[in-house]
């Protein structure tokens, strides 16, 4: 709770509440990474507010020594929008789950993205409903057997990044709970963006969807199964960065020689390339992590605030003048 003096550390972002996730849950690593990043960014606890929805992930604010609001299932983006409008200088983060953000809250999510409200959204994607004990979510793979789909789900999943790009998001990135350094770096990148930044974090729910990302996050597989996006750099992967990723004529990503690797540009105005990667097949291609898109557009809250300023310059009017309006008459005593 210290608010002055010496540089803050990770510990200064820990609240006094017991953390109540299942032992082994990926949420712990994310909490750790965010606290680390916040400390390294030199944030002050009282300048940050974290707004969440409902879900295991949405318990996050309780564990952070910042301002926090644990709201309603799916509605965090709306409340965070109001908060940001109220106080554009406040550093507002949103924590949400795949169910919270993409099932019940899908509409609010795409609307903040299109508006480019200055919110930083951490989307914990465990491809399952954790808190309600294991139903499939809008990011669960087809055929997923869960309590609510004993014969397997028949829903095609969303690509959260693809959806965000479709909604005209200005900053979209992806990381993984256990890639601590990468995750910290991504949190810092989000922080630097003006407008909405969305970070999809692959998160393991070891109780209801254990190993969801094992096939590409396991230590031994990682190098061959993950490709990191770096601005202006070729798309390389493999232990010695000896393989490349490129796009065919239909813009389908495909594995190529190192030399033929496409160069990544996160600043492209048109989201088509990022879309191509977002919808790439996870099973057969390396999974991209890093920044998919980062383009500039003025944040909603500053445009709105600007209008107030302009209006204020154009017209001054006392409360009395306002109440009286243009047409009055007087009744004498």
């Amino acid at each position, binding site marked *: *709770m*210290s*608010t*002055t003096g010496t540089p803050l550390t990770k510990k200064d972002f820990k*609240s*006094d*509440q017991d953390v109540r996730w299942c032992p082994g849950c990926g949420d712990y690593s994310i909490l750790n990474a965010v606290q680390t990043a916040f400390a390294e960014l030199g944030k*002050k*606890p*009282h*300048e940050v*507010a974290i*707004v969440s929805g*409902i879900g295991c992930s949405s318990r996050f*604010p*309780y564990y952070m*020594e910042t*301002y*926090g*609001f*644990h*709201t*309603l299932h799916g*509605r965090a*983006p*709306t*409340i*965070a*929008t*109001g*908060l*940001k*409008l*109220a*106080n554009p*200088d*406040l550093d507002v983060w949103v924590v949400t789950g795949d169910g919270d953000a993409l099932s019940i809250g899908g*509409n*609010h999510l795409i*609307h903040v993205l299109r508006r480019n409200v200055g919110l930083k959204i951490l989307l914990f994607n465990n491809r399952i409903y954790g808190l309600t004990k294991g139903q499939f979510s809008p990011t669960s793979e087809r055929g997923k057997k869960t309590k609510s789909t004993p014969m397997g789900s028949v829903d095609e999943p969303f690509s959260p990044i693809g959806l965000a790009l479709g909604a005209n998001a200005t900053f979209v990135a992806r990381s993984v709970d256990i890639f601590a350094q990468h995750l910290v770096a991504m949190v810092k990148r989000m922080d630097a963006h003006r407008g909405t930044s969305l970070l999809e974090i692959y998160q393991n729910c070891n109780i209801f969807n254990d190993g969801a990302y094992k096939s590409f996050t396991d230590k031994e597989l990682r190098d061959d199964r993950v490709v990191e996006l770096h601005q202006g750099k070729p798309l390389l992967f493999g232990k010695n960065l000896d393989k490349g990723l490129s796009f065919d004529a239909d813009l389908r990503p495909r594995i190529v020689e190192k030399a033929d690797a496409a160069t990544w540009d996160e600043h492209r105005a048109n989201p088509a390339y990022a879309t191509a990667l977002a919808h790439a097949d996870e099973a057969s291609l390396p999974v991209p992590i890093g920044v998919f898109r980062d383009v500039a557009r003025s944040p909603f809250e500053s445009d*709105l605030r600007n*209008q*107030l300023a*302009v*209006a*204020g310059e*154009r017209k001054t*009017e*006392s*409360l*009395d003048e*306002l*109440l*009286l309006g243009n*047409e*009055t*008459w*007087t*009744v*004498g005593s």
Partner: protein
Amino acid sequence: MTETRTQTQFEEVDQIVVRFAGDSGDGMQLTGDQLTRTTALMGNDLATFPDFPAEIRAPAGTLPGVSAFQLRFSNFDIHTPGDAPDVLVAMNPAALKVHVSSLRRDGTLIVDTTSFGPVDLKKAKYDKNPLEDGSLDGYRVIKLELQRLTREALASTTLDTRSKDRCKNIYALGIVSWLFHRDLKPTIQFLRGKFASKPEIAEANVKALEAGHLFAEVSGLFQAAYRVAPATFMKPGTYRNVMGNQALCLGLVAAAKKSGLRLVLGSYPITPASDILHQLATYKHHGILTFQAEDEIAAIGAAIGASYGGLLGVTSTSGPGLALKSEAIGLAVMTELPLVVIDVQRAGPSTGMPTKTEQADLLQAMFGRNGECPVPIVVARTPADSFGAAFDAVRIALRYMTPVILLSDGYIANGSEPWCVPTASSLPEIAVKFAAAGDGTARFRPYERDPVTLARVWARPGTPGCTHRIGGIEKEDGSGNISYDAQNHQHMVDLRAEKVARIANDIADAEVIGHPSPDVLFLCWGGTTGAITAAALRLSKAGHSIGAVCLRWVNPFPKNLEAILRASKRVIVPELNLGQLAMLIRSRFLVDAQPFTKVQGQPFTSHEVEEAGLAALAALRGQEVSR
């Protein structure tokens, strides 16, 4: 013919009720608005009732496309736009069909005969031509070919015929202005302003107005013009005319200024609440922030977020939108944040009849949330009263750290009346205190309370040393930590109820209108106030032991209400629903309050209410005799 001008007979009357009815494309609302403005400026008391069609523009000439505007003005204190108009202006057969039956027997019917061909009659579902079949015999019918008259008046202009025809309503306004001795200047000024960029059109309209006026005078069609002296009963002060939604917005802004807080409106358009969003959007120079959200839930979410951020969050909607906001209102109750939720009621259920009025959301406002989730409810009673209701809503929300639901309805929202404008300095200050910055030594406790109001402390995010977490899960009093403790839950449920109950300490006592200790008491709330006040005043003046209480707060009830109810022998609750307030009163006080209801999308007429009062009185006397 000029000499006739000077011979104009003026009949002095104390009030006039006039209704314009025509196609939604005919500009009836604009015509009515102008007549209202002028009348306000001439110092009469007045009340208006615009009646919109459901469609933007139903096919011309059809019954669903009819749009109407009623104005009543007087030299005495009036409370409703009147039951039956003295004068009806019907611009086509459909308008005639829909409205003629409400015209006063022997009333004046001005009818535009331009389109009474077979096709027009069929569109209006007339089998025979009503102008010819004797069905209008009881009325003083004045048939005018308005289209021809207007075209003739504008013959010298360069306008095309269609544009000329569009001035028809203004021609009619000219006629009516003569008939009621209304000043033309305000309308001329308005027309020149409105069509500033099209001076040709402006002048054509002015010409039509003046031509109509002249025609009325010289044609000799009218036996006399009427004059209503300015109202004299009015308390001294500066007046303006306001519509309900407008007054409500002014109340919000005034309260925000008096509290020193910026106001953030989160809203999603819906009839008849949209004008609140529109109006507040024009107050940006007062620091008012409006946000048109993607839906009603996002709208209230943004308002809650703004309140959490230390501003004044407000959200406005109508019944179906309130239904959607119910879950979020619960969050505001649990997190004890100030918030004003405005419901401008319309006829339901479901989509219902969006352009018609009703008062059937009271129980939804009281109970439409999961769990024990008490919310104070304040109601707007008349167009001008919306100002005070909104001001009060803000005052209580901030003082008690609670969401407040403000109920208005389509009838008051769009109706208008003169309003004695208060000076800013006469309005009470609204004290707001935020938690002060801490030095980090003591943990901030967001659920510490004011012992009097039980309001919790409000800390603005960004304040050093006050970091804290809130949410919708039950929390420990004081610390605000999550708690599943059984006793704490009971405590918090009781406490939230008690907090709302204590608001009774902060609201005005109920006032009895009419007979001071009546045998028959009307108890009403909201938009029926005008009709009930009028009825109670008239009946008590006529010597009947009848009075009325028109509630400003429905939850909690004013402290003196119980005594008033018990003192009267019969309580009648007139409502535009199936008896919602009656049900609250009955269960709370175990008093045999009788609902008197109407669910027709229309307000009560004073007449209906008077009859109900007299019937109740008669029944009571009968009982007393037979006892």
